[in-house]
């Protein structure tokens, strides 16, 4: 078991390394520089700026310098928003993204598992068909369609919920409903389908047949024997789900005007704000890699075939 944990930990490092390196060089090699979109700056000022941000040094040296800074936890100043550092910008917006993302994933998992269980027990009956049809809609409709449509219906026409904004604003918690609903919908759908399929497979397995042959009442068979094995794949899915939530939050934050990291991500890419993008990519990747790691470890604890080698 500890070997398993160590192996997982060790794979973190090359992954992070590759991400940082890849992003760094990708961004630097893109056409145009961080200052090319601004008004024509005089040559002297440009040179000073370049020197200030160390852009006059050879690429390799810039890279090593950046690596050193990152390891110390300093992401540098924003190229675009000259008065703030990247650390400040990210620290302000990250908590909002995390709250939204975690809440959305939590709802999606709970609802998805519940629906999946009901569907598998009532296979091929109307509960199953309805649930699975809704699930297919969930995986078919893109987030940027769900978001605006929900806004149209619930905010503009029915006036039940606020159009945009965040819980820090005047609408409080109500502002989180629509964005969380939007963000969670595709993952709820996927988890529902996944748990249904997995539970059905377990229901047909030999060991459930043994449990029934032992005379256990069906309720006990399901709760004690079916659920544990059937729901384990969901744990594995949470890793990629988190990755999707991160990507999805970019859209949802833009649509609902939520002050999170996602919303500034697109702008920083278009602005070629090198340090800000790098900072965002590293933070996102770190979160993702950490989540995957945690998910792997939790899975290892839950599956006795790994926990007890």
């Amino acid at each position, binding site marked *: 078991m500890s070997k398993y944990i160590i192996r997982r930990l060790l*794979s973190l490092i*090359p*992954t992070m390394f*590759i*991400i940082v390196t*890849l*992003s760094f060089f*990708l*961004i630097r090699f*893109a*056409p*145009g520089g961080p200052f090319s979109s601004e008004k024509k700056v005089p040559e002297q000022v440009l040179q000073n700026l370049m020197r200030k941000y160390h852009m006059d040094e050879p690429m390799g040296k810039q890279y090593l310098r950046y690596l050193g800074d990152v390891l110390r936890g300093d992401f540098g100043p924003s190229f675009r928003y000259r008065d703030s550092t990247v650390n400040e910008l990210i620290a302000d917006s990250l908590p909002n993204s995390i709250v939204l993302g975690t809440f959305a994933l939590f709802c999606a998992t709970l609802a998805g598992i519940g629906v999946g269980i009901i569907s598998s027990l009532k296979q091929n009956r109307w509960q199953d068909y309805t649930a699975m049809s809704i699930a*297919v*809609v969930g*995986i*078919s*409709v*893109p*987030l*940027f*369609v769900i*978001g*605006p*449509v929900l*806004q*149209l219906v619930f905010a*503009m026409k029915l006036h039940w919920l606020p159009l945009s904004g965040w819980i820090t604003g005047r609408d409080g918690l109500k502002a989180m409903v629509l964005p969380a609903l939007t963000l969670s919908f595709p993952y709820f759908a*996927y988890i529902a*389908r*996944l748990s249904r*399929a997995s539970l059905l*497979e377990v229901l047909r397995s030999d060991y459930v047949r043994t449990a029934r042959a032992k005379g256990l009442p069906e309720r006990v068979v399901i709760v004690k024997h079916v659920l544990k094995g059937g729901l384990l794949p969901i744990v594995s899915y949470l890793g*990629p789900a988190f*990755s999707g939530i*991160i*990507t999805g939050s*970019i*859209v949802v934050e*833009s*649509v609902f005007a939520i002050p999170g990291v996602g919303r500034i*991500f*697109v702008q920083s*890419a*278009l602005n*070629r704000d090198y340090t800000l*993008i790098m900072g*965002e*990519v590293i933070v*996102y*990747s770190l979160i*993702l*890699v950490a989540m*995957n790691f945690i998910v792997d470890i939790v899975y290892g604890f839950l599956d006795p075939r790994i926990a007890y080698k």
Partner: protein
Amino acid sequence: MSRKISKTVNEFNQQLKPISLWADAWKRLRRNRMALISLWIVVFYAIIALAAPILPFFDYRIQNLDHTNLPPSFRPAGQLAIEKLKSQITILKERVDSGMDTLKPDLERAEQELTVAKDELISNPENKKVYIFGTDNLGRDMLAKTIYGARISMLVGFIGTLTAVLVGVILGAISGYVGGWLDNLLMRFVDIMYGLPYMLIVIILMAMFRKEGQSSIVILFVGIALVSWLTIARVVRGQIISLKNSEFVEAARSMGAGPGRIIFRHLLPNALGVIIVFTSLSLPSFIMNESFLSFLGMGVSAPLSSWGSLVSEGANTMELYPWQLLAPAIEMTIFLFCMNFLGDGLRDALDPQSKNRT
């Protein structure tokens, strides 16, 4: 390779109908009503998208400033334009009456336009047009726009998926067959790629590498295809590995078949079922990714439009003109919905005991 299927009789004098793998799969697919309906809908979309230039629709580029922002209707555009002007005038009148004199010139202009419109109602043939999906802010037909959007989206999806599948199948097959360090390397690479928030990297790519005004379709392909081949490669590799020690492979090898021939003539045809299923499920995923990028403003750029950019535009005006959002949104949703149902149905038909079900 055609095989004659003849009817034979067993020892009890019962008729036996041997059935080929594909016929069996087709039979199973036919029984799945939802999948069948989805198939016809997808085919319908494909036909319309392909034939769009020759169909009697209005050109999506034609602008008609008399017909801006008209709601969807079966009535002729001229009447709708008049109604719009009338309601505008009513609002302006109210405001002017309540004391907003600065709006007086607007009110007069509107009343003049109304007179002109009424005159031209019969004389101008343009006014007889029917916009069943409404128009946008430049008077362009939403139906035409969404159809052309569909063309682009489906084109991107199709070509992108094909590329991803090709790359994935070849790499996965070689990796699975050859095994050893090559396989290890490739799978490590796939694992790491899986762990990356690749959409972020794609966004960065798109933002960095696009040139203003130029159509960025190629970069779009490269970006999305870069990550789409991962799943196919893994799946094909898995199939190849489970098949490569079968007896028919040994037989082929003993007859002198080289690895290339074995992979392409013997192993891959057996993996075809899985490949088809994943292709049909990759297509909607590809389209979703493309429209995601377009929505953020990083996909196809004007004058081309895809479903993603249409939804993006529509989202801006949805309070006043909701049809501009709903038309592309619903059209896109239906297509993706059907593709997913079709993919599910294909998987049930070709691979009923699949462990890859979700």
